């Protein structure tokens, strides 16, 4: 008897990871001697021996009602379960699995839980698949990334990643932290399929952190990494078996993973052993072919379509796919008080409108009347082609530490130009020259004045509340872009400005600020920064809106103190300010 025709169907508009996973299963079935094909969307017409496989928690919630399979087809459908107990998606799966003829589950703990609930389910052990292997097992193969991380941006994990920044400072790091929204093609922070495997094969270590809801090991991610020889460093997890911590992967407390990565990076012997052991284990210790056989047998038993199934539980109608892709709701704003469109909800009183107008007037007047005076402190040091502009506004800490950080960096800037915009002028400074504004005139005005004294090819734009890594200038220069920026560590949000500039996102939230290296011609073309007092605090947002090309250097090279600026027009009358930008 030939094996049945397994048809693995993924939902249109579902997660691309599920599609990839079903491809792997299909491939495994074929290698085990069975027949398998993949499909998308509506169930294809059944052959006489067709058995379908779907991932229920996604398929039935995303597929349009019209495309849902008929009950006869469900009698020939196997549920492919991937979620862990304790999550909402697991509960969905558990509710649906009774309406399908059979079930397999890739996790040991959820298999147990389903069985406990009286569901007949087979454990499907994922394992090595050549579809994912871009490495091939060569221990001498070169990897150009030391430490990488792939996971959506989320507060807890951002805080942890920020905590590793010092430990990882000397290493080559790529942190991919895409926003929590449906992803499409490849981007700098999102790598599907081929690109992801190539990246993993090019990275020495992968840091793995859990999402808010679950503590179970992300098996699919870990398998992808081990298959490509990327050593996995994870925080404590449930469901690690049959992997052995210390042998196939490394488990350490979440706050220490950075230090662990740095330590292992200098212990090549241990690294080699972990890499080899992990690879060997997934190749020889995980019985994917066996599970494929199990799946084939299960399908064989369902071919006659006589299994008894319960009717489908009531399901919500999937929302019509929006014309505009939804944006992640938790992208942190650059500004501590103003978050773009979401901050426009509040009603503004008459007094605030007037106060806003007065503030604008006051600054406009100050721009005309204030004293400005330059003081040279040190000669320029030509060579690197980078000038640094630092503006200190009232309420910001003194930039002495930042200047010393820059002077102690691996690449020395030519000039460090500092402007005390309404803040006291230091008598002694390590900066090249200091411009003192008697009254606060605005960050834009300050930077434009500093720019007049700058002659280098590149300009690094910083605020006084930042502290820099030794490698900041070096790594931003290496990006060789019109504009290069990096994620910035923040004590409250973990990481800010960790996303590339995107038009539709910038139209909703000012999530990017300073901390970028820009080519002088680009600045000249833009005409510098806006001097409009109404836009106080949003000058960089305006800059980013007009940037065309930029590179995100995915390593945390700057830290900022929690900003708490005094009241600005945008705090008083946000609607007016936002309207004038858009």
């Amino acid at each position, binding site marked *: 008897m030939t094996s049945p025709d397994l048809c693995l169907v993924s939902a249109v508009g579902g997660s691309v990871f599920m599609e990839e996973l079903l491809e792997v299963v299909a491939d495994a079935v074929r290698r085990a001697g069975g027949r398998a094909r993949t499909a998308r969307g509506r169930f294809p017409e059944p052959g006489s021996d067709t058995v379908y496989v779907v991932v229920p928690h996604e398929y039935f919630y995303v597929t349009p009602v019209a495309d849902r399979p008929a009950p006869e087809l469900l009698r020939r459908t196997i549920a492919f379960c991937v979620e862990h107990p304790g999550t909402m998606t697991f509960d969905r799966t558990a509710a649906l699995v009774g309406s399908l003829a059979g079930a397999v589950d890739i996790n040991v703990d959820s298999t147990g839980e389903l069985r406990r609930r009286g569901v007949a389910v087979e454990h499907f052990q994922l394992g090595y698949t050549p579809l994912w292997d871009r490495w091939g097992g060569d221990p001498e193969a070169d990897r150009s990334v030391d430490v990488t991380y792939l996971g959506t941006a989320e507060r807890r994990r951002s805080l942890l990643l920020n905590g590793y920044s010092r430990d990882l400072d000397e290493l080559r790091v790529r942190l991919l932290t895409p926003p929590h929204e449906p992803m499409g093609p490849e981007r700098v922070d999102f790598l599907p399929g081929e690109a992801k495997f190539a990246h993993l094969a090019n990275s020495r270590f992968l840091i793995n952190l859990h999402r808010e809801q679950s503590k179970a090991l992300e098996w699919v991610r870990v398998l992808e990494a081990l298959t490509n020889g990327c050593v996995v460093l994870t925080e404590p997890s449930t469901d690690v078996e049959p992997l052995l911590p210390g042998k196939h992967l490394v488990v350490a407390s979440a706050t220490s993973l950075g230090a662990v990565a740095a330590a292992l990076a200098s212990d090549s012997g241990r690294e080699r052993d972990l890499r080899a052991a992990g690879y060997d284990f997934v190749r020889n210790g995980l019985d994917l072919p066996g599970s494929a056989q199990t799946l084939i047998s299960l399908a064989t038993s369902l071919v006659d379509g006589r299994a008894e199934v319960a009717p489908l539980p009531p399901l919500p109608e999937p929302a019509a796919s929006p014309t505009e892709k939804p944006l992640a709701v938790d992208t942190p704003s650059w500004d501590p008080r103003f978050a773009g469109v979401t901050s426009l909800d509040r009603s503004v009183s008459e007094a605030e409108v007037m106060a806003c107008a007065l503030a604008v007037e006051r600054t406009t007047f100050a721009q005309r009347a204030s004293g400005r005076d330059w003081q040279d402190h*040190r000669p320029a040091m030509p060579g690197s082609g980078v000038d640094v502009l630092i503006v200190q506004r009232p309420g910001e800490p003194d930039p002495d530490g930042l200047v010393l950080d820059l002077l102690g960096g691996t690449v020395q800037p030519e000039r460090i130009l500092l402007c005390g915009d309404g803040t006291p002028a230091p008598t002694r400074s390590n900066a090249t020259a200091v411009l003192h504004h008697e009254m606060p005139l605005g960050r834009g005005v300050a930077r434009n004045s500093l720019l007049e004294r700058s002659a280098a090819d590149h300009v690094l734009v910083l605020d006084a509340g930042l502290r820099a890594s030794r490698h900041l200038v070096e790594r931003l220069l290496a990006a060789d872009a019109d504009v290069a920026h990096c994620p910035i560590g923040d004590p409250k949000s973990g990481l800010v400005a960790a996303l590339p500039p995107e038009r539709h996102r910038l139209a909703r939230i000012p999530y990017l600020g300073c901390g970028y290296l820009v080519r002088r011609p680009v600045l000249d073309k833009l005409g510098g920064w806006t001097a409009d007092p109404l836009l106080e605090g949003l000058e960089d947002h305006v800059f980013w809106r007009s940037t065309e090309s930029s590179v995100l250097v995915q390593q945390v090279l700057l830290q900022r103190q929690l900003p708490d600026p005094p009241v600005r027009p945008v705090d008083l009358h946000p609607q007016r300010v936002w309207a004038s930008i858009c």
Partner: protein
Amino acid sequence: MNDDLSDLPGPVRAELTRLRAERVVFVSEREKLLAQLREADESARELLADRDRLAAQVAELPETVRSSEEQTASIEALRAELATARQERDALRNELTGTRAERDALRLRLLDAEVVLGGREPSAPVAAASTSGADRIAAAEARAAHLARELAATRATVSWRVTAPLRAVRRKSR
């Protein structure tokens, strides 16, 4: 000379005496003048020596000016060097502070790990001011139960939260 002037006539004798007296005066005047001449000679010589000395000094002046200019320049250079050295020193101190902070954080994490391995909690939580021993025992037992509960909770966090209203309803209808 014969001082016997007695055989000379009176007027001649008087004349001779007068001439002799004059001669003495002239001689002493000549002596004085000679002395003055000598003095003048001396001072002229001294003045010449002074003049020579001053001339030599004047000749040296450009040298002195140059060397003092050089000194000023070298002082300026030293000042600049000192300023650079101070700046370097400040930058190094800054780096040192950062490195020390990094080292301290790592060492403290190691301490926490050692303490946890020893079976205690890293940052000693503050125990409430319990009164009686029975209270303490009860608290300890309850704590054990809580920890077991917490363990279960970490596996079921979302469903716990999500189903809380359901649990309340269930309790109400019990």
